[in-house]
């Protein structure tokens, strides 16, 4: 049996210096999530990984036919603390003397009724008495000592049963009560009678059916309403979870960035950089389905690779990059395009580092015959005749990289006006076909 992750929010449990077994028992909690009555079944299901519906069916069946399920359920309800709490209902109930007295009264009254029934000879119900008496007494204690929230939900569940919801429904409730009483008496009469007008086997079955019909008439609308409320509650919970998920994402991304922006308000460059990075991330989440904060790093298409260059360089150097991409194609193992993208990245980084421009234009186009990339800045530029060694090195490396693959690179620069690096790469025949990708 796999141990579910330990819920740390029921705080005190870890603090108790206890051997293994009390921890296991005390970490069994009544769950708020997915509960119908006290959350006992949900708690057991969460703790033991037994199917929740199966547990409920077991409780119901043993509750109806022997009363045993009800007794166990009510006792568990009394003795198990709610998830996130440490006190149990029974710890409050022992101080509630009036409640104890009422419970005892209810139990003894039930025992009297059952004894009376068994004297009448209806053996079907005779075994039920003791567990039912315990259950009834426990329910009285729960009713009086559960916390506010639980009591409210119990009240919401039972008020339609008592017909106390509105005046207009009272006559309807009275009619139902009348019909149910009639059916109940008829059923009990069938069960109690000795007359052999029906088959020996058929008599108790008929009696039971009529009694069940009586219960259904009385409680049917209530059951329906409880089921409907549960459905509504489940929907509300799903919505709340979605909202929490979005809130968490917004917090992780947008709010963090806003906080950073406030702290760096004196540095416009950084603020712009943060805002742009955040904008892109949010956009890719909203429209691209990609979660904020997750960046793949590997691009499948040419356009995606160019966007990746844009993102990386913007993030690293705090320069805005205006990327315009026309056409697209699969990258697969295209080494030629890979080399061009590497050169484009180098050129973009170089412009970001040296040009001093605040915006760099990055234009990439995929055509049938060739692919091209242009990196342009309006920065300080340089005189190609008098280049510092490192920049010349870059020009050479970009050019060499392109030419090795059969492409071309040219660099134009005018001091004071900016620089443009142009890269073109012919596309080999095999790669031309899927050019209308995406």
């Amino acid at each position, binding site marked *: 049996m796999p141990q579910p992750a330990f819920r740390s929010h029921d705080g005190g449990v870890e603090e108790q210096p206890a051997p293994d077994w009390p921890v296991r028992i005390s970490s069994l909690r009544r769950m708020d999530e997915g509960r119908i009555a006290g959350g006992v079944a949900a708690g057991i299901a969460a703790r033991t990984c037994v199917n929740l519906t199966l547990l409920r069916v077991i409780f119901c069946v043993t509750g109806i036919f022997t009363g045993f399920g009800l007794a166990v359920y009510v006792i568990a309800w009394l003795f198990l603390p709610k998830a996130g709490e440490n006190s149990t209902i029974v710890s409050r109930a022992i101080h509630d003397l009036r409640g104890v007295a009422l419970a005892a009264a209810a139990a003894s009254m039930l025992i009297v009724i059952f004894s009376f029934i068994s004297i009448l000879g209806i053996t079907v119900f005779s075994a039920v008495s003791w567990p039912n008496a315990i259950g009834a007494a426990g329910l009285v204690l729960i009713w009086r000592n559960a916390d506010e929230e639980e009591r409210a939900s119990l009240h919401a569940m039972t008020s339609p049963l008592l017909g106390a919801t509105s005046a207009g429904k009272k006559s309807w409730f009275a009619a139902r009560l009348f019909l149910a009483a009639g059916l109940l008496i008829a059923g009990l009469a069938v069960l109690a009678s000795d007359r052999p007008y029906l088959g020996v086997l058929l008599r108790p079955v008929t009696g039971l059916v009529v009694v069940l019909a009586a219960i259904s008439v009385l409680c049917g609308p209530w059951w329906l309403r409880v089921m409907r409320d549960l459905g509504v509650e489940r929907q509300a919970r799903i919505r709340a979870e979605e909202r929490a998920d979005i809130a968490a994402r917004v917090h992780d991304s947008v709010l963090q960035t806003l906080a950073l922006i406030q702290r760096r308000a004196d540095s416009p460059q950084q603020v712009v950089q943060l805002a742009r990075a955040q904008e892109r991330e949010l956009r890719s989440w909203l429209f691209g389905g990609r979660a904020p904060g997750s960046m793949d790093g590997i691009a499948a298409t040419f356009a995606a690779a160019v966007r990746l260059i844009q993102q990386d360089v913007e993030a690293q150097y705090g320069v805005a990059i205006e990327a*315009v991409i026309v056409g697209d194609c699969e990258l697969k193992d295209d080494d030629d395009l890979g080399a061009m993208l590497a050169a484009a990245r180098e050129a973009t980084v170089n412009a970001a580092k040296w040009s001093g421009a605040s915006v760099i234009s990055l234009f990439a186009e995929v055509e049938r015959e060739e692919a091209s990339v242009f990196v342009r800045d309006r920065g300080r530029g340089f005189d190609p005749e008098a280049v510092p060694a490192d920049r010349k090195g870059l020009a050479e490396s970009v050019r060499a990289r392109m030419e090795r693959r059969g492409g071309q690179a040219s660099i134009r620069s005018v001091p004071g006006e900016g620089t443009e690096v142009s890269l073109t790469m012919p596309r080999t025949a095999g790669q031309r076909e899927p050019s209308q990708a995406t």
Partner: protein
Amino acid sequence: MAASRPRVFIVDDHGLFRSGVRSELGDHVEVIGEAEDVMPAIEGIARLIPDVVLLDVHLPGGGGQLVVAELAPILPQTRFLALSASDAPQDVIAVIRAGARGYVTKTISGAELVDAITRVAAGDAVFSPRLAGFVLDAFSAQTADPVPAPSFDPELDQLTPREREVLRLIARGYTYKEIARELFISTKTVESHVSSVLRKLQLSTRHQLTRWAAERRLA
């Protein structure tokens, strides 16, 4: 130049953005009105008849193209310049096809915006690099289509090599002046090329254009 300052009307649903644009434009233009929704915008523009309307592509009461479609036929002297933060191609193409004279992104600098406004006021078209990219993409997607759709005027559905060249340079971040120098033509010729592309964009009946825009949700 104070006498010929273009009279500008700003339509944007973000008050912060409107006041930001107002302060960035400064004394270069005369901002005569603002609106934050489609209906007040139509009402205000029809009443004030500005030279240029700065129009957000996304508005709560419908797209900016509604404003253009409503007013462009009855106010021939008013030009519309679309502004957008989102760059969703179908929105941009829609607002251009509705009759806007240009499109710029909201990240544009103040000086560039003033330049774009004066250009639009003078009747020219203003293409941002992004829009130039969209147009190139849209028209090249069509040429790759093996079965061209029937068309009333084939000339409208094709860019000339020169127009293509101009658009490519715009996409590369060149100004009109730089393009003129690069291609050894006058700035006026560059402007006429761009206007001709704009006309094709607005009038082309090829359904691929809308299909192309719809397929590319977001740039």
